[in-house]
């Protein structure tokens, strides 16, 4: 046990070192939400603890253009990041006091469970199996799984049915993702890599006909490809993105839900969108928060 504690300490030290070295040249890409100076929370709640500590640790994606993408300066940018800042601001925490931690698909639940992060905003689809281990606030956005093809769509792919009709056509996605599960309803000819950007090469060489995952992630990839790829724009699933918090932390979840609803109302949500994903995508209508 002592061994494990020692490891924890050095892990924190490592994170601290990384965090410090990252702060050297950060830029402020967008209008920051106004930080609440005077907020009171009921003692003992997660909100009171975070407000007291004056800092928060948020897990987000580091490799997803438009939503959560880290640059060489180690500061993530994107819509998820802005949503995280809005919540932190309501807790009285300034953007520079947020510790960003990379969340990948495999570590989102364990990070929430062991308190390594206070919340996760990371293109995180709300679903029933996940609800058994973490609680979700939101959704704050509803994505849908779609397909990415070479520009001008040479194969004429209209939707996932293409792969059912052409059993030889290969589609690429990320190993062990929900997108993989969904596309397998249509075809077994699926190849999978560690990241979505790894799927672009197979499409270039012709080893795969398309990449599939949530439309917003694909839009980000297309945006970074100088017009080499385009999104088919025919979503065939619904992926409500939620904010993951510790299981049964109902007060914190309600607080985030209230914050989201307020942000939907007063334009902070639209501002966040337009400053990030809105550069490429149309501004959608805010979704309805699901207080399950």
């Amino acid at each position: 046990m002592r061994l494990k504690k020692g490891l924890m300490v050095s892990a924190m030290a490592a994170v601290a070192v990384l965090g410090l070295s990252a702060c050297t040249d950060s830029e402020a890409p967008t209008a920051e939400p106004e930080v609440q100076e005077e907020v009171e929370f009921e003692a003992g709640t997660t909100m009171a603890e975070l407000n007291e500590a004056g800092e928060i640790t948020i897990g987000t994606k580091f490799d997803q253009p438009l939503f959560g993408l880290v640059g060489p300066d180690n500061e993530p940018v994107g819509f998820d990041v802005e949503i995280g800042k809005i919540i932190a601001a309501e807790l009285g925490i300034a953007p520079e006091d947020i510790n960003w931690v990379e969340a990948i698909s495999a570590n989102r639940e364990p990070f929430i469970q062991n308190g390594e992060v206070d919340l996760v905003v990371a293109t995180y689809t709300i679903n029933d199996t996940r609800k058994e281990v973490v609680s979700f606030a939101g959704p704050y956005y509803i994505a849908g799984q779609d397909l990415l093809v070479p520009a001008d769509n040479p194969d004429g792919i209209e939707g996932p049915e293409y792969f059912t009709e052409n059993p030889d056509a290969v589609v690429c996605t990320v190993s062990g993702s929900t997108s993989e599960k969904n596309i397998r309803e249509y075809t077994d000819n699926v190849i999978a890599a560690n990241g979505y950007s790894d799927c672009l090469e197979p499409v270039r060489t012709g080893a795969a006909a398309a990449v599939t995952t949530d439309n917003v992630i694909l839009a980000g990839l297309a945006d970074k490809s100088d017009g080499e790829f385009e999104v088919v724009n025919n979503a065939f699933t619904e992926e409500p993105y939620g904010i993951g918090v510790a299981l049964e932390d109902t007060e914190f979840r309600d607080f985030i839900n209230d914050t989201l609803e307020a942000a939907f109302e007063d334009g902070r949500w639209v501002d966040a969108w337009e400053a990030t994903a809105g550069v490429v995508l149309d501004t959608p209508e805010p979704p309805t928060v699901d207080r399950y």
Partner: protein
Amino acid sequence: MSQSVLYDAPGPRAIRRSRVTSVVSAVLIALGIAWLIFTLASPRETAGGSTQVGLFDASRWDILLDAAVWRALWRGVQGTLQMAGAAAVLAMIIGILFSFGRTARTAWIRVPTAVLLEFFRGMPVLLMMLFVLLVFASGSYVAGVAALAVYNGALIGEILRAGIASLPRGQAEAGLAIGLTPTATRFLIEFPQAFRQMLPIIIAQMVVLLKDTALAYIVGYPELLRIGVNNLSNFYGNAYFFTLFFVVLVIYLVINLSLSWVARFVARRTGSKAVVAKIPRRGIFGRTRGTAAPTDDGADDGAAGKS
């Protein structure tokens, strides 16, 4: 000159044949490299019908002029070294514990240790990292360090055990004869010798450990491969995918080759001083060019099993 007993000193015809082989292979390699460079440099037609500039086009390399990129890569190197360093120290400790457990006189300790060793030796590191992360809900750093430490600890334990087993019986007997307890004999007499003799193999194992930190992508730990290839190419765009791959490859080679060089240096140093256990049975290849004392073969031998 080569001292191998396997063949005669080359005569004029053998020398001529050897020269021809050298020239032919040099030409073939040069042609291969030229083709490689030509293919990579020429523009590429993708399956989607678009044309991309060749790999050596300036537009694929300009980010390397940006100091921020090198700072990010340096952060990756730090992440890699931090994980490798912590895992190496822990692996040594675990390895020592394993080697004692495995050579214990009581079966109660020996047998369970052997079972544990078999288990850890047979598990993929990727699986172990994921296991620690998901089951103990630890951070990615802890998951990576723990998996690398336990796995390499098991291997180092086996290396040390082999080292102890290779010592002449007289060493332990002498220890007992002067009145040391069996445990003290093991600690004071056998273990230091085994450790010194196996040091080159242990260092070679550390190179393997360092390479394996690249597997920590599975738990999202920010090491060189993840920051260099994944994060940076997502940020700057997929056109830099191969550029960053080559840069990261070169960095890994520089780090690992230096470490291997240190391993060889240590091997030579300890080789000259090493206890005359079983080492100097001169190998069939003799001392062929460049390779040092037989301990060097030992280093290769040890690394062989454990990638």
